[in-house]
C-alpha cells in the first residue's frame, strides 16, 4: 500500500466466541428485586400442560462477561462514528447523540400507546410538529407517520393509490418501474397487487419520456420514480412526466430515498409528485443500528388524504390533540400502534437542530459528491455524464481490463480504512461504483477517500492481484458465502463444536 496513505486501517483482533460458549449453569447477569406478593405454584397456575421446564441451551453468564462480549463484538464493526460510508442512496450521515438522549427521556420512552389521550399530549404534539415539518419539506398536503421503513412506506403509498383509483371505479393493474429502481420498488408493487412493467432508461440514464408516453395506458395506476435517480441525477423532466400520467388518470409515486439532494432546495409536491415516502434513517439522521429500525412516513396530495392509515392525528377545537381510530375510506393499518415513535422523535430532534438552515446540509452533500466526482473522473469510468447531485456513479470498465471488478475495488477500499461504496447497483450500470459521501464528511475525509480510490486505481493497473485478493488487513478474510448458502447454519446448537476463532 502507498506509504503516504494516512488513514487508520487495522481492525482490532480481539477473539471472541459465541455467548453460548461461555455459558455455565449458575451464572447470572441480572438480578430482580425480591417478589413483594405471595409466590405461586407454577404448575397450579398454568396447569402442567402449559408448564415449561427450562430453556435448553439458554445462556448463563455474568454481567461482566456480557459487557466484555458485546464490547469486543462491537470493535469488529465499522461505523459512521469511525469514518465515511460512501454508500450510494443510503445517506450514511452523522447520527446526532442528542437524539439518543431525548428518545430515552422518562416521559418519552416510557409511554404506552394505549394510555388515555389526555396523558399523551406530549407525544401527540411531537407527532403534530413532525408532520408539519415534513409537509413543509415535501410540499405536500397530508402525511402518515405509520410505516416502519421505506419499503413499508412504498407499500402504503401504493395502497393509497389503489384505494383512490378503486373509489373512482377501477384500481387498474400495472405499475411502471424504471430499470434503475431499488429492489424494494418491484417487490412492493407485487405485494400491493400490481403487475410490474419495467421501463428502460434512455441513454443519459433518465426516464425515457417518449417511451413513457406509449406505456401509460388506462391500465397503469402509477409510475414509481426515484428523484434524483439512483444515478444521482435529477430527473429534469419530472413535471412533464407527472403531466403525462395525470392526463391518463395515473399517479406519480416518488421514492424519497434521495431526498438528501432536495431538502430545502426544491419541493417534490411542486414538481408534480402525488405521493412519496421519506426514509428517516437516511435523510433525517436516525441511526442505522446495523440494519434498522427506520421509519418511512408517506406524504401525499389532498386527493389521497381520505385513504390514510388509521389512527389519524387531529386537533380539537379545545386545542387538545387526539388520535381518531375510524375513517371510512382508510386503507387500514400497515402496522400496529402508531409507528416507530422513537425513530420519529430522533428525526424531529434533527430537524429542530437545523431549522430553516437545513438547506446547508443539502448543499454540503452535493458539494462533497461533486468534489469527489471531479477528482476521480479519469481514474474511473463515468458512464453517465449529466451533472451529479448528492451521489455519483462510476463503473469498473477501466479496471476490468486487468480483471479487477467493482467488488474487488470495494474490498480493497476496506484496507484503506473505509467502508465500501455500493457495488453493482443500479443494475443499469454494469460494474457500478455508487458513491454518496453525505454532508457529514469534512474536506479532509473526502481527500483521504479520493487518495484511497486513486491509489486503488493505480494498483488495479500495476498490481491487480493485491486488489483481487483484498481485504488483507481485516480480522476475517473473504468469507465463504457459497458454503453458507449451500448448507445454511443459522443457529448455534447445544452439541455443536464449531471451530472457534483462533
Amino acid at each position, binding site marked *: 500500500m502507498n506509504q503516504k496513505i494516512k488513514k487508520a486501517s487495522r481492525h482490532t483482533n480481539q477473539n471472541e466466541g459465541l455467548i453460548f460458549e461461555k455459558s455455565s449453569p449458575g451464572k447470572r447477569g441480572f438480578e430482580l428485586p425480591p417478589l413483594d406478593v405471595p409466590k405461586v405454584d407454577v404448575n397450579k397456575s398454568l396447569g402442567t400442560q402449559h408448564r415449561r421446564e427450562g430453556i435448553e441451551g439458554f445462556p448463563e453468564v455474568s454481567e461482566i462477561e456480557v459487557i466484555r462480549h458485546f464490547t469486543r463484538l462491537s470493535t469488529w464493526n465499522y461505523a459512521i462514528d469511525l469514518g465515511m460510508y460512501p454508500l450510494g442512496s443510503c445517506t450514511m450521515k452523522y447520527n446526532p447523540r442528542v437524539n439518543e438522549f431525548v428518545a430515552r427521556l422518562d416521559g418519552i420512552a416510557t409511554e404506552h400507546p394505549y394510555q388515555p389521550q389526555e396523558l399523551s399530549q406530549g407525544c401527540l404534539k411531537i407527532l403534530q410538529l413532525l408532520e408539519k415539518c415534513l409537509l413543509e419539506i415535501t410540499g405536500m398536503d397530508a402525511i402518515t407517520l405509520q410505516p416502519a421503513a421505506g419499503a413499508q412506506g412504498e407499500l402504503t403509498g401504493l395502497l393509497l393509490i389503489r384505494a383512490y383509483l378503486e373509489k373512482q371505479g377501477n384500481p387498474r393493474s400495472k405499475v411502471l418501474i424504471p430499470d434503475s429502481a431499488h429492489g424494494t420498488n418491484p417487490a412492493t408493487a407485487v405485494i400491493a397487487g400490481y403487475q410490474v412493467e419495467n421501463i428502460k432508461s434512455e441513454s443519459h440514464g433518465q426516464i425515457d419520456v417518449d417511451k413513457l408516453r406509449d406505456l401509460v395506458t388506462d391500465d397503469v395506476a402509477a409510475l414509481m420514480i426515484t428523484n434524483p435517480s439512483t444515478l444521482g441525477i435529477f430527473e429534469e423532466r419530472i413535471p412533464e412526466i407527472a403531466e403525462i400520467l395525470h392526463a391518463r388518470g395515473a399517479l406519480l409515486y416518488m421514492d424519497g430515498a434521495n431526498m438528501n439532494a432536495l431538502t430545502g432546495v426544491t419541493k417534490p409536491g411542486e414538481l408534480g409528485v402525488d405521493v412519496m415516502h421519506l426514509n428517516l434513517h437516511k435523510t433525517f439522521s436516525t441511526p442505522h443500528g446495523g440494519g434498522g429500525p427506520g421509519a418511512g412516513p408517506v406524504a401525499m396530495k389532498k386527493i389521497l388524504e381520505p385513504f390514510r392509515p388509521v389512527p389519524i392525528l387531529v386537533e380539537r377545537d379545545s386545542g387538545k390533540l387526539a388520535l381518531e381510530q375510524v375513517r371510512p375510506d382508510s386503507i387500514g393499518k400497515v402496522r400496529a400502534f402508531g409507528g416507530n415513535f422513537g425513530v420519529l422523535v430522533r428525526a424531529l430532534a434533527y430537524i429542530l437542530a437545523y431549522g430553516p438552515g437545513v438547506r446547508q446540509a443539502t448543499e454540503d452533500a452535493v458539494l462533497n459528491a461533486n468534489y469527489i466526482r471531479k477528482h476521480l473522473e479519469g481514474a474511473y469510468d463515468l458512464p453517465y455524464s449529466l451533472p451529479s447531485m448528492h451521489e455519483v456513479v462510476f463503473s469498473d470498465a477501466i479496471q476490468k481490463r486487468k480483471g479487477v471488478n467493482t467488488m474487488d475495488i470495494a474490498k480493497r477500499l476496506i484496507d484503506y480504512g473505509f467502508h465500501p461504496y455500493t457495488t*453493482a447497483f443500479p443494475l443499469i450500470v454494469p460494474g457500478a461504483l455508487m458513491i454518496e459521501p453525505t454532508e457529514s464528511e469534512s474536506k479532509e475525509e473526502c481527500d483521504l477517500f479520493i487518495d484511497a480510490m486513486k491509489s486503488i486505481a493505480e494498483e488495479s493497473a500495476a498490481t491487480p492481484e493485491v486488489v483481487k485478493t483484498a481485504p488483507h488487513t481485516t480480522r476475517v478474510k473473504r468469507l465463504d*458465502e*457459497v458454503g453458507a*448458502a*449451500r448448507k445454511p447454519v443459522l443457529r448455534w446448537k447445544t452439541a455443536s463444536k464449531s471451530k472457534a476463532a483462533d
Partner: protein
Amino acid sequence: MAYPTNYRYTKEHEWVDAKDGVAKIGITDYAQNELGDVVFVELPAVGKKLETGKSFGTVESVKAVSEIYAPASGDVLEANGELQNKPETINSDPHGAAWLVKIKLSNPAELDQLMDSSAYEAYIATKGKEASA
C-alpha cells in the same frame, strides 16, 4: 467445454437430450459460468406439465437467481434429486450428471425449432462480444 452435438439448445441456455420421446433437460456450460457457484436448485414435482417457454424452476447462486424455461412441452417423469445435496454438480458437469428433469415430450417436433450445437456456439460467441462492448 464442448457442446454435445446431439443436443438441442435454447436462447435461454437450456439444453435438451431427446431419445424415444423422452427428453433430459439441463442448463449449459455458458449459463453455469454466468451464474457462478450454484447453491440451490428448485425443480418441479413428478407429473407437472411443462409448457414451452414457461419457467419451471430456478437455479440460484449466492447473488442471483435464474429461471429455467421449458424448451419443449411435456410431463415431468423425474427430477434430479442429486442436485438437492450437490448443487455444485451444475458447475462441474452441466451437460451430464447435472440434468435437471426428464420429461415425456408431448410434441417431439418442437425440438426442430431449437438450435443445434454449432448454432448455439455461434450465438454465445456474439453474446460474448456484446458483453465486452
